[in-house]
C-alpha cells in the first residue's frame, strides 16, 4: 500500500513531535544511573546570603553544610570547593559565565532571613550550561526547621535533575548485635538515611532478625526468639512493642510485606518443608506460595507485587528463584555462583540485588529479572552481604566486613562506594531501607 499524502503529513508531524520530545528528554537527562561509569555533575553551592535587608546569621553556614552533605550522599554530584569561587551570588541575577569559569554545571543559590525564632529560606537551582533556572522554593518556619528545609530542597534538586525525589525522608532498619552472657544479643535499630539519629526498636534481649518495612513505612516486621524459636512480630513505629503475629512449630523467618497490602510473605517450616507462605497481619495463612522440598527463604516482591524472588536449595545449592504469583510458575534466576542469597528487588523493578559467593567471599551482585546483565558491585576482603535498595532505586546499602566486623555501607546502584553508615560497637547487619516519607512528611 502506498501512503497517501495525508498520512505522510501525519507521519511527518509525529516525527517532528518525536524529535522535539527526544530533544527535551535528552536535555533533561543529567545522569543515567544505569551507565556504570557515569560522571558526577559539578555543582557549586556558594555561601548562603541574607535576603535584602536581613542580617547575616549562622544558619547560612549550617544550612549550606546540611545541603552539601545531603546532595553529596547521592553520589551524583561533585560539590565544588567554594575557595575556588569568584565573588558572591547576587539574588535575582546569576552570572552564568562566572560559574561556568569555575567549572560548575549546576549552581544552588540560597538566601535567608531570621527574626527571633523565625526562619525564611529561599533556594534556587540553576543550570549553568543552559543558563536557566531549574527549580526554586521558599520555606517559612522556625530555626529548628532548618534541616527539614534543606532536605526538602535537596529532594527538589533531585526531582529536577533525575525526575524523582531521593532518600532524604528515609530511614534504614538494621540488626545491631552486642555480646551477652549466652552469646550475641541482637536487636532491631533504626537510623536516618545518612547513619545519624540511631534509635533502638526492639528490647527483647535475645535474638531479633530480618527487619522488613510495610509499604507505608508505619510497620516493621521481624523474627525474634522471644518465644524460644524464631517467631514473627510486627511493630508499629508510632509506638508500643512488637506484637506476635505467627509462631508455628519450627522456624518463622524473613517476613516481607506484600506491596499494597498488609499481608506478609514468610518462610515457615511447620509442614516439614521450609516454604514461603502468604499470611495476613492476624497470622492466618492466606496462601501456600512455594513448594521446594528443602529450604525456601528470603522472599522479595517485585514492586508491582506480581512476582517474587526468593532463595531455594531445590537445585542442590542455595540459588535465587523467581515465582510468578498468578501462575505459580517458578524459575531459577542465578547460575554460575555456588551460593546465592538475600535477594532484594529494586523499587524500579529493573534489577534484583543479591549476595553471591565469589572466590569464597560474598559480594553484592545485581541482575535483570530475566537473568541477564549480572553486575558484581563490590569486591575485596570481607565481602558484602544483605543488599537493600533505596526507595528511588539509586543507592544500595549492605553489610560489609572490610574492618573485620560487619557494618553498614552504602554505594550507588552501579557500585560506586559512598561511605560507611555505621560505626557502632559490635556488629551491624541486615539493613532494610524504608519507603520515602518515614522520617518526616513529604511536601
Amino acid at each position, binding site marked *: 500500500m502506498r501512503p497517501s499524502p495525508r498520512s505522510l503529513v501525519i507521519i511527518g508531524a509525529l516525527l517532528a513531535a518525536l524529535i522535539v520530545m527526544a530533544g527535551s528528554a535528552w536535555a533533561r537527562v543529567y545522569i543515567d544511573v544505569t551507565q556504570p561509569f557515569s560522571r558526577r555533575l559539578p555543582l557549586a553551592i556558594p555561601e548562603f546570603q541574607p535576603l535584602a535587608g536581613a542580617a547575616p546569621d549562622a544558619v547560612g553556614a549550617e544550612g549550606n553544610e546540611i545541603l552539601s552533605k545531603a546532595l553529596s550522599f547521592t553520589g551524583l554530584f561533585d560539590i565544588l570547593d567554594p575557595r575556588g569561587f569568584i565573588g558572591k551570588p547576587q539574588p535575582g541575577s546569576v552570572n552564568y559565565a562566572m560559574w561556568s569559569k569555575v567549572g560548575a554545571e549546576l549552581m544552588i543559590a540560597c538566601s535567608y532571613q531570621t527574626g527571633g525564632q523565625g526562619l525564611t529560606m529561599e533556594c534556587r537551582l540553576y543550570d549553568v550550561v543552559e543558563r536557566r533556572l531549574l527549580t526554586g522554593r521558599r520555606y517559612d518556619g522556625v530555626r529548628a526547621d532548618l534541616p527539614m528545609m534543606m532536605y526538602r530542597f535537596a529532594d527538589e534538586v533531585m526531582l529536577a535533575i533525575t525526575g524523582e525525589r531521593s532518600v532524604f525522608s528515609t530511614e534504614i532498619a538494621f540488626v545491631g548485635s552486642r555480646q551477652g552472657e549466652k552469646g550475641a544479643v541482637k536487636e532491631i535499630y533504626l537510623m536516618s538515611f545518612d547513619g545519624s539519629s540511631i534509635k533502638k526498636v526492639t528490647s527483647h534481649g535475645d*535474638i531479633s532478625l530480618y527487619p522488613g518495612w510495610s509499604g507505608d513505612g508505619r510497620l516493621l516486621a521481624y523474627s525474634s526468639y522471644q518465644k524460644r524459636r524464631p517467631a514473627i512480630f510486627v511493630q508499629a513505629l508510632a509506638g508500643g512493642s512488637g506484637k506476635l503475629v505467627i509462631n508455628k512449630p*519450627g*522456624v518463622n*523467618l524473613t517476613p516481607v510485606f506484600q506491596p499494597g497490602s498488609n499481608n506478609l510473605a514468610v518462610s515457615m517450616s511447620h509442614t516439614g518443608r521450609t516454604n514461603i507462605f502468604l499470611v495476613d497481619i492476624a497470622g492466618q495463612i492466606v496462601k501456600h506460595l512455594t513448594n521446594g522440598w528443602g529450604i525456601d*527463604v*528470603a522472599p522479595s516482591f517485585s514492586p508491582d507485587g506480581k512476582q517474587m524472588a526468593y532463595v531455594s536449595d531445590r537445585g542442590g545449592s542455595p540459588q535465587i528463584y523467581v515465582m510468578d504469583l498468578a501462575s505459580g510458575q517458578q524459575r531459577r534466576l542465578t547460575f554460575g555462583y555456588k*551460593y546465592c542469597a538475600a535477594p532484594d528487588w529494586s523499587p524500579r523493578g529493573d534489577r534484583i540485588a543479591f549476595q553471591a559467593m565469589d572466590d569464597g567471599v560474598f559480594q553484592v551482585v545485581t541482575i535483570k529479572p530475566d537473568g541477564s546483565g549480572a553486575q558484581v558491585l563490590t569486591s575485596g576482603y570481607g565481602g558484602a552481604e544483605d543488599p537493600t535498595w533505596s526507595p528511588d532505586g539509586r543507592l544500595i546499602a549492605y553489610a560489609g566486613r572490610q574492618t573485620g566486623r560487619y557494618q553498614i555501607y552504602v554505594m550507588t546502584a552501579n557500585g560506586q562506594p559512598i561511605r560507611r553508615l555505621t560505626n557502632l560497637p559490635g556488629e551491624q547487619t541486615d539493613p532494610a531501607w524504608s519507603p520515602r516519607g518515614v522520617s518526616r512528611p513529604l511536601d
Partner: protein
Amino acid sequence: MKKFLVVIAVAALVMSLGLAAGCGKEQVAAPGGQLSAEEQARLEAERQRRLREAQLQEQEARASQLREVFVNQDIHFDYDRYDLSAEAKQTLNDKAEYMRGNPALMVIVEGHCDERGSNAYNMALGEKRSKAAAAYLEAMGIAPNRLETVSYGEERPLVMGTSEEAYAANRRGHFVIK
C-alpha cells in the same frame, strides 16, 4: 637444737608406726573366733552396706558421666548439608540408648551452622539439622513427644573464629536435657 628436733621426729615416727601395727593386729585377730556370731553378722552387714554404697556411687558416677557425654557430645555435619554421617548415626544410637534407659528424659535438639552463608538460609538449615537428628532418634524408638527441636542458625557458635576447625565444630547438632 637441730639434733634434738630430729630425735623428736624419729620418736614420733616410731610411735605412729607402733600404733598402726597395733591396730592392724587387732583387726586381723577379729575374725579369728573371739567375736560372737552376732558381731560377725553385724560386720558382714556393714561390709555389704559399704559394697552397695560403693556400687551406687559407681553407678551414679557412671550415670553422671553418661549424662555428661549425652549433653556434651555433638553430632557434626558437612558444609551446607543436613544428612547424617555414619559417625553421627553412631552417636545418635548412643543418645537413643541413653534416652531409653532414662525414660523420663525430655530433650531439646538444637541445630547449628557455621557463620558462612546467609543468616536466613542458615536458620532454615539449622532446623533441618535438628529435625534430621530428631527423626533418627524417633526411628530408634524414642517417643516424639520427648523431643523438641530448635534452630539457632549461625547465632550461637561453639567456637569463635574463621578456621576450618572452628567451622566444623560449629556445624553441629547439640542435645540439651530439659
